């Protein structure tokens, strides 16, 4: 009921604000998924994203004095609905945040024509990092290939991977298959056996067959590329199968506190790579408390706000806001166009000092982008579940940039040829 009251209040507030101050401003729609099988992953992230923009409006009057018109269009993680949302919002939008690798792949060619930047933080098509080919797409601060690379680097630190068997448990969906080219390449070069194990959408909560295969094959490690309900399904089966939790690592979307709460202590030792981390002492958290929590203007709750995913939502909106800020400063105006935002996103420079200014020290590794590098390749931490929460289990680990760059270039070229005539970023001379 409390949830209902909050939603009703938010709807009323949204309607009121939508009709007045925020009708004009920086229109930054978010193709959100608060409903459907992936809602458990989506809700805390969407809350974090929304709260960051609401905070900028409440505290600073927006970005550069221009209010942010942050609107959600619900997709339920459905590619068809996502494309509809893109079409519906593209008229006024200065950015599109597609929120699924499937939707990203669908709108990728359209954004070239419509000239709207795609911001897909930590998801989407990994070769989007190649800004010379993908002029309008950004997947800061890490791509899926970066994530796979960091996981392999961490595993290599535990012992040589040569001769080891690595199971790759993944959602049978474009998102889940995305790191396969990189993992296959590394399996060959590093001499480990890669065992891909797909999980169908209808089997997410009943993965007994997949875990029977894991029991039979006895892999040394399980890398999990899970999203939404798949994570909880896999972790409960891992506990049931008595797979050693310390040998199971997930992508950043498989490191959600709520999924691990299902197994609690039994999940101790489970790890996840991450490019964000909550910092309860960061000044931004005090500001959120003052400007949103105390007036009752957030859909979140204290438990969620302390978690990894809410914090990631804040970081995602911060990256977008920073892109807007950089563009405003460069072009000398508040209201910016999509192409000006594209320039801003291409010139991000999030140093430790800048993160401190933003009140977000320690919440994301420093990184910068360029016209050739649309990802930033920030590096990531390995987080470990201690039975009640995620803690940092490693220092910052950098991806194998050389190996990734080679693959990115090849696959970007392949994509451009398959979608010819593909407009290249000829202005980029790097």
């Amino acid at each position, binding site marked *: 009921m409390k949830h209902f009251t909050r939603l009703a209040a938010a709807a009323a507030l949204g309607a009121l604000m939508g009709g007045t101050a925020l009708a004009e401003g920086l229109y930054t729609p978010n193709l959100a998924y608060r409903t*459907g099988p992936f809602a*458990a992953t989506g809700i805390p992230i969407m809350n974090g994203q929304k709260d960051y923009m609401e905070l900028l409006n409440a505290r600073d009057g927006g970005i550069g004095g221009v209010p942010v018109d942050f609107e959600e269009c619900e997709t339920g993680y459905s590619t068809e609905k996502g494309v509809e949302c893109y079409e519906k919002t593209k008229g006024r939008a200065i950015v599109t945040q597609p929120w699924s690798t499937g939707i990203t792949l669908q709108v990728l060619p359209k954004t070239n024509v419509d000239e709207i930047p795609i911001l897909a933080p930590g998801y989407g098509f990994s070769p989007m990092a190649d800004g010379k080919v993908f002029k309008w797409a950004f997947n800061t601060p890490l791509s899926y290939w970066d994530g796979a690379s960091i996981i392999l680097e961490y595993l290599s630190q535990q012992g040589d991977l040569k001769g080891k068997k690595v199971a790759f448990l993944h959602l049978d969906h474009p998102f889940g298959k995305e790191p396969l080219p990189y993992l296959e390449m590394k399996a060959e070069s590093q001499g480990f056996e890669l065992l891909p194990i797909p999980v169908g959408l*209808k089997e997410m909560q009943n993965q007994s067959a997949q875990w029977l295969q894991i029991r039979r094959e006895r892999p040394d490690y399980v890398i999990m590329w899970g999203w939404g309900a798949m994570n909880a399904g896999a972790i409960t089966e891992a506990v049931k*199968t008595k797979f050693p939790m310390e040998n199971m690592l997930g992508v950043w979307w498989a490191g959600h506190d709520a999924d691990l709460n299902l197994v609690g202590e039994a999940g101790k030792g489970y790890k996840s790579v991450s490019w964000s981390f909550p910092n309860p002492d960061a000044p931004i958290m005090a500001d959120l408390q003052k400007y949103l929590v105390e007036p009752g203007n957030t859909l979140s709750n204290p438990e969620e706000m302390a978690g990894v995913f809410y914090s990631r939502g804040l970081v995602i909106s911060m990256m977008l806001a920073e892109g807007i800020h950089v563009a405003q400063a460069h072009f000398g105006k508040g209201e910016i166009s999509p192409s000006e935002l594209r320039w801003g996103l291409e010139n991000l420079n999030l140093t430790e000092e800048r993160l401190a200014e933003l009140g977000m020290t320690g919440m994301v590794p420093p990184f910068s982008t360029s016209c050739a590098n649309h990802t930033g390749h920030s590096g990531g931490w390995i987080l470990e579940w201690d039975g009640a929460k995620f803690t940092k289990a490693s220092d910052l680990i950098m991806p194998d940039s050389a190996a990734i760059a080679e693959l990115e270039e090849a696959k970007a070229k392949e994509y451009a040829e398959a979608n010819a005539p593909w407009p290249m970023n000829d202005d980029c001379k790097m």
Partner: protein
Amino acid sequence: MLNEIFIKPFADMVGAPDFLLQVLWEGLVSGILYALIALGFVLIYRSSRIFNFAQGIMVVFAALTLVGLHAMGVPAWICVILTLGVMFVLAVTIERVVLRPLVGQPDIILFMATIGITLFLIGFGEIIFGGENKVMITSELGIPTDSVLLEPWGGLLILEQKDITAVVVAALLVVALLAFLNKTRMGRAIRALGDDHQAALSVGISLQTIWVLVWFIAGIIALVTGIAWGARAGVSFALEVIAYKALPVLMLGGLESITGAIVGGLMIGMLEKLFEIYWGQPLLGGNTETWFAFMLALIVLLFRPQGLFGERIIERV
């Protein structure tokens, strides 16, 4: 290749019988839960010829109500009773608001109405309970959560106590349901309505009462299914998609047959696991459970269009 298809799988089964037992057990657990969902469909179809598309979301709604009430501080078993009350109110509301005005309409209209109920319950449920994954109150309900480790033939067989509980409770529910349908007046009334609507009405059986009753029973089944599935991987709207696994069960067993739902569920549960482990994963890269049950049902339909236990309809023309 012939060796991979015809010899190796069976050699693997004989070589590791404990693993085969584990596969069969996992198939049995999945199968009995598929059967439970299918039973909900069959009951409503038998009494009203309505294919209830909302059965899946009823599972989610019942489970969410249970954990939602518990989160408000209500003791676990009181939550069960209150959830049953909610499912009864839902049954009455559906009968009054949706079904009664549509009496006499073509089957497709009633089917579409159940799609409407599904969409309503998704939206209503998300507004009330939110879309986050929730922990089922397994231990609070007294369901044991440890594992039983057996060592048949010197191997290892892991049986989750909550799975054993689910199998036992589901079996008891089926027995109780069969006894209710065969031994009580109301049960016989449901069957009569399923056999011949007009004849049943002519002897004074109340359509409205029976519809409320079957939707309520479907609600009870949904609650049991929701507890069993929720105990495995949490309660979220993703549970709804599991209901689609009941469709091939219905095709295989027949839409009107309770026996068909049970046998069909168990067959599909066990065969899809056997196929996935011994043929699907080694030969096809896995994830065959997505389509295997439908293929099996399709093959059965080629030879028995009414399903294994469905009634053969012969019409004079």
